């Protein structure tokens, strides 16, 4: 079955140039965001500690407002690997 999308004309040089420029801009933006997010790590460590505390007391949202208290034995440990703190992929 054919769709309109299958009949799209070839890209012109102008369109290719527009795409190249926007792709390059996006790449810079991606790298800027990744760096900014790395810069939040000290704060994020605090947020994670607070989260792990909340789920052991108030509980973890299993489904909707249904909560379950997580036991200390269930709390995960931070893995020793380079991407452990990565949030932008």
């Amino acid at each position: 079955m054919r769709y309109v999308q299958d009949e799209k004309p070839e890209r012109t040089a102008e369109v290719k140039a527009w795409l190249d420029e926007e792709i390059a801009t996006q790449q810079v933006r991606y790298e800027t965001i990744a760096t900014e997010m790395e810069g939040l790590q000290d704060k994020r460590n605090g947020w994670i500690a607070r989260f792990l505390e909340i789920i052991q007391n108030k509980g973890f949202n299993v489904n909707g407002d249904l909560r379950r208290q997580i036991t200390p034995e269930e709390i995960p440990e931070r893995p020793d690997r380079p991407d452990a703190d990565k949030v932008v992929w």
Partner: protein
Amino acid sequence: MARPHIEPFVELNEDYKNFTLPGFTPLGSHFKVLSLDTDVGSCTLKMRFDGGYSRKPGLSYSDIEIFVLNGAMKVGGELCVEGHYLFVPAGYALDAIEVPQGCEMLVMYNDSEPSFMESDTHHPLCLKEGFVTVNGYEDAPWAPGNLVNPSVAAGCLIKVLRYDVLTEAISFLYCMTPQFMQDNISYHDCAEESYHIWGSSWMMQFGELPTGGYFWRPPYINHGSFRSKLGTIAFGRTDSKLHNYFHFNPWSNPDENKLRAAAQMYRQRPQLYQWALSDGHNHPHGPSDFENPHYHDDPQVKHIHGHHDHPHDHHHHNHDHD
């Protein structure tokens, strides 16, 4: 690659550029790219049209979604004001556009880079019955977030604006009430996109996302826990079925999350899992479906599986079907 992970991006800090792509009316139209697929050119733009802007009737070779953020745009005889949502199927000859006093909107090209061809008749292959026009603020009801199960916590509500029956991709408005909180970490099998129309929300990985905040998040990436101190309203989309996988490991990566999702499938849909894995059943274009015999050719289905045959310079896939 498809669209990279853009999160968080606050577009209000960026300048508009003139929209000069061939075929479009450049005078009075401006854009910012929020995210862009580097292979096929599909993209989400924030656009501004100045007062007095007009465009003749015409069509695109891509499905388009439009959400009016502010101001008003006249499409033929219909006045589209803030909150208005349009889904314009590829090949649909949209009526002439006039912008009386300026407007801003999100414009999403789902299949390829922006394209426009002047025409007052639909393309012969156009699936014109897919056209949607609705004011999301006035004509769509808020529904509880348990539309999806497992569900978000109470206080996160949703208005569905469009639902794709083949892929279950949805476009929607959502809101978080003031003091919304949800203490879990979430990920999905689908890509997820959001633009904060007003208000702010917080996620443990990314911090505060304010008004004008945006993300395009590929599948299996952790986000949450969640807070919204003063509430927020946002436009969101997924590219396929939204399933909430909740957990409490802040350090899991997308590969581990995907394995966990597959393990759930192994446990919960054992026969399907075994069948899909068995010899000869793992064709990349998917099995046959007597109810939807041509689904392999559907542009959205092809897109989410990375199958595309658009001419471009980055890399090329063009698989033959059996």
